[in-house]
């Protein structure tokens, strides 16, 4: 026994623990990326019948429905290709990409410079591709009389300074602010652009989500909460809007126009909370990964973007 044995077991242990942790996360979207290193590890063989191979995509919960749609279409056209997608959160996808366990990280926020540094430390070179756009809608229960809010009011609600709906023109009822957890790119994006009011003259980088804000593990659960709860407020991507919730018109400044989220208002930039959606790959995409991303960016691919409620690039 002694050292040698311990080394081997060390590996085994890490494997056990990592798988264990993944099982813990399984509820947030079954993850099938296990701790096996696949540096660019897709077996690509282009033959006359078409492409074969597999692509592993992990990341944004927001992008998940769109990626699934793209992947289904792409697999229909190329029967030899299998694509697996899971959406526990942008941060998760980026962390996996840095650790080298997946091929594409889908993200609803740009990678941070610290994340680029971590990737480079491990000898990886993440390359960014914008694949679609999204408007972040702010939704309340249809029974809530509030129809519009300013960015500053939203910041007040999510930092916990505004706690009653009557402070923003609603009923006398406590506000239940619902957020995604820290795994989520939407959480990070909303924090920067709404909570900290980046891009307005009131920008304050020290603001944080208030301690009473609910942190939920999935976007759908947040939408369900708002559908059930008259006092709740949440910020799902445009693709998650249903008839059971009411999107609010957002004003960038108190005097500005109130704009409802839609594909058109996001595209022309008049809706203030819109953002890019990204795919990150190891280096410039090659082989089937390139074909897949090319498909996503093609006219057909961008048509799917509109169909599923997101904002196409063109």
């Amino acid at each position, binding site marked *: 026994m002694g050292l040698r044995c311990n080394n081997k077991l060390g590996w085994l242990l890490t494997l056990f623990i990592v798988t264990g942790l993944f099982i813990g996360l*399984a509820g947030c979207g079954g993850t099938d990326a296990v701790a096996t290193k696949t540096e660019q590890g897709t077996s690509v063989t282009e033959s006359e019948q078409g492409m074969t191979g597999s692509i592993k995509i992990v990341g944004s919960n927001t992008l998940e429905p769109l990626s699934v749609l793209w992947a289904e279409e792409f697999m229909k056209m190329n029967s030899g290709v299998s694509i697996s997608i899971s959406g526990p959160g942008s941060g998760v996808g980026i962390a996996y990409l840095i650790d080298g366990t997946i091929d594409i990280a889908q993200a609803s926020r740009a990678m941070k410079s610290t994340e680029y540094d971590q990737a480079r430390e491990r000898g990886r070179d993440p390359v960014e591709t914008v694949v679609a756009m999204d408007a972040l809608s702010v939704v309340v229960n249809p029974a809530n009389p509030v129809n519009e809010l300013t960015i500053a009011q939203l910041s007040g609600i999510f930092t916990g300074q505004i706690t009653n709906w009557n402070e923003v023109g609603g009923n006398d009822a406590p506000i239940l602010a619902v957020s995604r957890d820290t795994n989520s790119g939407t959480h990070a994006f909303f924090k920067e652009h709404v909570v900290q009011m980046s891009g307005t003259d009131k920008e304050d980088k020290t603001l944080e989500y208030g301690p009473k804000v609910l942190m939920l593990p999935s976007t759908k659960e947040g939408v369900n909460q708002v559908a059930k709860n008259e006092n709740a407020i949440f910020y799902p991507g445009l693709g998650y809007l249903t008839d059971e919730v009411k999107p609010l018109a957002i004003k960038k400044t108190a005097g500005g126009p109130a704009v409802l989220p839609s594909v058109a208002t996001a595209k022309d930039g008049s809706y203030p909370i819109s953002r890019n959606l990204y795919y990150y790959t190891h280096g410039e995409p090659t082989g089937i990964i390139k074909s897949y991303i090319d498909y996503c960016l093609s006219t057909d691919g961008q048509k799917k973007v509109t169909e599923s409620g997101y904002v196409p690039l063109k």
Partner: protein
Amino acid sequence: MQVSKTPTATTVGSLNSLRRRWRLGEKFIESWIFLAGILSIIVLLGIIVLLFKEGLPAFLYTPPWEFFFGTRWYPISEPPTFGIMPFFVSTLWITLVATVISVPVGVACAAYLSEITPEKVREIVKPVIELLSGFPSVVMGFIGLMLLSPLVQSTFNLNTGLSGLTAGIMLSFMSLPIIVSVSEDALRAVPDYFRQASYALGATRWETIWHVCIPSALSGITAAIMLGIGRAIGETMTVLMVAGGALAVPASPAEPMMPMTAAIASGIGNAVRGGLQYQALFAIGLILFLITLAVNLIADRVLERQKRKFMRT
């Protein structure tokens, strides 16, 4: 082994070779079992070593005092702050709710099973209750989300049904089977002449259960309760789904909260291996491990005492 009374040379010879072969098989199996046993111990030790190795560096960034008593947990901010007080208090609240519900119900159920119900009913009911512990926690979480949380919200007139209370109630269902099963074993281990003596003195059945059986089995029941608590502290999926996940230090169990297990599960995906958040989450894991270890050790001690008590009598 059958040996004929008058063995000839040949039978003795074949018997010997047979024995030798058996002995080889025995050796093989013995070493196999030994290997399995030692492996599980090494794996366990390895997990502990890993917890310490990955978790302790967190205290270089956040001093232990601030880590335990800090109330702000912002892992993805610049600079990140790690204070686990909200998670710790949440875990306490949820465990308290689970215990308050599951202990009276569990012990009463155990007393019913061991003292009152006929053997045939017990043989059916007990395995069914034990089966309850086999429910995947994600299913319990789902039930809590869909059925219990609206009920809790309307009953207690709360702002949201996702709260420590909901989580505690779901957890009480999950620790109930352990409490029932272990307490029932403890109650059945109480010698029959205790009961007979009690009845002989004119005690009713209720008095016998309350004043004789339960006190004699108390250490076993305590162990059962500790094991149930251990289960409740360590449960993750259910609390992640229904506890609400607010980061404030909860003042009452009716508030949304995030216990330690949920904090680990909801943060680990986002944490890059070896980063600050990763270390902080491992440090929470380490603390959680020490808590459950303590609870289980106490349970073990108490169970041991119960066994010794009846060995003497």
